[in-house]
């Protein structure tokens, strides 16, 4: 008499379910540590893992007008810029996923990828 389901079928089903659940968890919660992604004129210039920064340092970017970032453990900010409006410097420190600062005259954008989620979905200003 044919068994409708053999033990091997049950094992396959179990593997399938575990695989799907794993896939789902992976796509939903792939938590990596915060990375500062620096764009100059639309191109990625550098990616810096902020958790790995031991001592704060300044990074002067090859852009015009000149702009300098302060890279710290877990944070990045524009510390100096030769632009006139200083909107970039006034933005302050970026620490959480999605935090963004830009210097328009220099065509520089810095955005935090991965890392801890912000408590808010967006900030209006």
């Amino acid at each position, binding site marked *: 008499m044919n068994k409708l389901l053999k033990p091997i079928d049950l094992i396959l089903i179990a593997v399938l379910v575990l695989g799907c659940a794993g896939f789902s968890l992976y*796509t939903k919660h792939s938590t990596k540590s915060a990375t500062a992604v620096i764009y100059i004129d639309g191109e990625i210039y550098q990616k810096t893992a902020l958790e790995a920064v031991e001592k704060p340092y300044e990074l002067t970017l090859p852009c015009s007008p000149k702009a300098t970032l302060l890279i710290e453990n877990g944070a990045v900010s524009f510390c100096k810029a030769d632009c006139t409006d200083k909107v970039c410097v*006034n933005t302050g420190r970026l620490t959480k996923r999605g935090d963004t600062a830009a210097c328009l005259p220099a065509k520089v954008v810095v955005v935090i990828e991965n890392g801890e989620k912000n408590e808010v979905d*967006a*900030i*209006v200003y």
Partner: protein
Amino acid sequence: MKKKGVVLAAVAVVILAAVIVCDSLFSKTASDTFLAMSTAVSLDITGISSEKAAEQIRQEIIRLDEKLLSRTNGNSEIYAVNNGEAKISDELILLLTVLKEIEQESGGAFCIGVAQLTDLWGIGTENARVPDEAEIKAATENCYGWTIDYGSKTVHMPEGIKLDLGAVGKGIACDYACKIASDLKCRESVVAVGGSVLLDGTGKKTAFKVGIRAPLGEANEYCAVLEITGGCVSTSGNYERFFEDENGNRYHHIFDPSTGYPADSGLLSVTVVTESGAISDALSTACFVLGIEKSMPLLQRYNANAVFITEDKEIISTFTSDNLEITNDSYTLGEVK
């Protein structure tokens, strides 16, 4: 009997697995950050076509900026309008019609015919200065005089008047993004074009949290959190672009078109929430100029809600207290007087 039960259980398990996979596919999020419209744009789109939507939104916002709204790009329609009579697209006619209506409904507190005034003050540039009264009078005199000629599809411009859609371009971009995301059946979209934000969660999320910038703090610091189910949120504040003269007087960049001077209505910022980004952008500017009391009929007219922050650091809102939480102790909740 027992075997039947096992088969049914197996089928149920397979269906469950399929549901998990589908949910993961539909929850696929695409993110992007780029510069357009003189600001940083960031996109977070969730849905099975999220990557396609994010790419289309990026292209569309860049096209809007370069081909339609920019007044400095020689290829844009607004540039052509400002530099001699030009035939304009139906797309621009539609936008200008909405903006003309808000100009009238706001009693002139919102007006796009002020590019010459912005240039005269030069706030945010190296040439920032306080112009003399004759110059200001000349720059504001005919600012409401621009009209749309629907027959010839042109804009009639009084002499010396130029259009500046800078106050609404970001909100217009949010509206275009919303259309693309909903056409592609995305279940959740957060699109921030500078400080103008689209929040669309038709598919999944029940509420979004929006931080309102603390006017006297850094740009990433907020003083209140607004909880809404969706819509477009725009803020106008006097802190982002300003200059100080030799006597320490501070001049910001939101002008009252009727006087030609920076608006002085006792406010630090106004945040407006509506279904349309173009309207929330325009209303936040208009309400900043009008002040709290005079803003109320305008907000009602457009079914909009607002959060005002006064110079006394009072937060006054048309939302219920369930929707608004003050997160910074130096601000207090006030009431509409």
